[in-house]
């Protein structure tokens, strides 16, 4: 009896995770088929890769905000680190590693690790803070990261690499015939190979999902939730708060870095894209999808990311409608009366269906 009960609970959790994975895969498969059949325009196809990296961003942020319970407003900064490390690696290794797939895979790993490292470095000082203070400091760090990258200059010529911070490199010292700009301050970074495809991005979403699900359903995930629910009680039973917070920050920023690498390999790259608007946008996806609810994050990202594009026909009123839809979603999500109303309709309909079936 008791084994059956715990077993059935674990199975229910596994089933839930598989449903979430299936939603993602089926959605992208259908979208791809519709695009190739010409039902959806090429505009929509262009949305699929961004949707992938936004989903990765949302579920990795949910690990910190929803599962660990700390409000982080600097997630865009980690994405920025991943994007630039991955992009610079790909540009530098263009001739050294001719195989584009291998180069892209290495860029992903390197970008993820770099972002994870920065995540841990930032987490160490802010672990002493909680709540609003932590949110403010992460916001500041996110801004600092992209500002720093905006001030980096990196040029390669036949003599090697030249790096300068805050001021452009003096061209008189360079060999102009073989000079190639890699990072050029606030200017967009060009020449990153467009290695990201819908399929590879989708695979990365699936990997992220599996890893995050497995983390949540392990002793680390339980410890994250314990810290969120009651820090004092967690300490009293010997849960190492610092260790688990650092772990959560590493995993979360690692995947933000991966999302950044995908971004860098599918878009023109400029650092001001990763300002606090990006971090807030991701937070909106997470909050509307439900804190701690991974499937919710995914669905909210799909809807809210596609929405501005779908609303393009309304031109000037586009963002107005977007805001109204956001507000309506928030109300529907959180208002008890609305919830009861909808679940009432749902019950009536499913009740009717049963009667019809008889």
């Amino acid at each position, binding site marked *: 009896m008791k084994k059956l009960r715990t077993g059935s609970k674990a199975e229910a959790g596994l089933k839930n995770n598989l449903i979430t994975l299936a939603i993602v895969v089926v959605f992208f498969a259908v979208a791809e088929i519709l695009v190739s059949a010409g039902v959806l325009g090429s505009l929509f196809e262009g949305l699929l890769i961004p949707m992938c990296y936004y989903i990765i961003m949302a579920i990795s942020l949910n690990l910190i905000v929803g599962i660990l319970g700390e409000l982080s407003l600097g997630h865009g900064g980690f994405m920025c680190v991943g994007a630039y490390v991955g992009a610079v690696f790909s540009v530098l290794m263009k001739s050294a590693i001719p195989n584009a797939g291998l180069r892209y895979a290495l860029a992903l790993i390197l970008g993820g690790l770099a972002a994870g490292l920065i995540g841990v470095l930032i987490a160490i000082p802010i672990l002493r803070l909680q709540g609003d203070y932590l949110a403010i400091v992460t916001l500041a760090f996110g801004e600092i990261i992209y500002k720093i990258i905006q001030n980096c200059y990196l040029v390669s010529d036949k003599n090697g690499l030249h790096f300068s911070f805050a001021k452009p490199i003096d061209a008189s010292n360079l060999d102009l015939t073989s000079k190639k700009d890699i990072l050029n301050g606030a200017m967009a970074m060009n020449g990153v190979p467009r290695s990201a495809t819908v399929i590879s991005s989708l695979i990365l979403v699936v990997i992220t999902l599996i890893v995050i699900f497995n983390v949540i359903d392990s*002793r*680390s995930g339980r*410890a994250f939730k*314990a810290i969120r629910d*009651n820090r004092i009680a967690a300490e009293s039973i010997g849960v190492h708060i610092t260790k688990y917070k650092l*772990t959560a920050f590493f995993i979360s920023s690692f995947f933000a870095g991966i999302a950044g690498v995908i971004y860098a390999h599918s878009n023109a790259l400029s650092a001001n894209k990763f300002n606090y608007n990006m971090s807030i946008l991701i937070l909106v996806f997470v909050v509307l999808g439900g804190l701690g609810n991974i499937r919710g994050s995914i669905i909210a990202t799909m809807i809210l990311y596609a929405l501005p594009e779908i609303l393009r026909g309304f031109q000037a009123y586009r963002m107005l409608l977007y805001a109204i839809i956001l507000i309506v979603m928030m109300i529907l999500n959180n208002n008890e009366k609305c919830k009861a109303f909808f679940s009432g309709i749902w019950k009536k309909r499913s009740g009717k269906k049963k009667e019809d079936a008889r």
Partner: protein
Amino acid sequence: MSLLEINNLGIAFGGLKAVDALNMKIEKGQLYGLIGPNGAGKTTVFNMLTGVYKPTEGRFFLDGENLTGHSPIQINGKGIARTFQNIRLFNDMSILDNVKLGLNNKQTYTVAEGIFRSPRYHREEKAMNEKAMELLEVFDLQEQCDWKAENLPYGKQRKLEIARALATDPKLLLLDEPAAGMNPNETEELMETIRFIRDKFNMTILLIEHDMRLVSGICEQLTVLNFGRELTHGKTAEVLSNPEVITAYLGE
């Protein structure tokens, strides 16, 4: 040698001495009560024994080992576990997960092993599930193991908190007002449970309580605190008939 020995323990918050020159000796297997009027400093003693507060004077020893000034996590590792006056459960997690968190430090698999589902992950999770279910059965909570902790009735939340503390495999269990907010039936049941834990796990228990029925029913020894100082200590019946104690509780 006593299991817990408290020597001259004290703490001052600014000019206020919340606890002053406290001495206690608890033998292995004893059921020991710490009583006193509101504000006497009982919970402060618990907070010092579990490392939440650092004592400003004195020391305490568990099994002869000086634990004064260690962090809550270290002290829990050395074998002191506690419950809280205002119940502190992981409300949004299942009852089983609450107990499994108490077993967290007994596990050795790493984060990466958790992600890649190594054989050790499966082995340890399975062993932990069984251990947690055993503990839940002791407290008759096995039927509700997949409920959220916050949905349990009050009396059972208290029990779950004790189960979670026991999961960390302590030598000494500190219970902070376990009967607070319970009706007479629940208190009766709780007394049974506390006795049962002592006998089954051969546990040493130190408890704070205001409910005199519970105190006189199960405690063997008592220490009475008043305004941060020890008023008296000794066998339960003697202490409770001491006129000074009665005055402290009821006033002149």
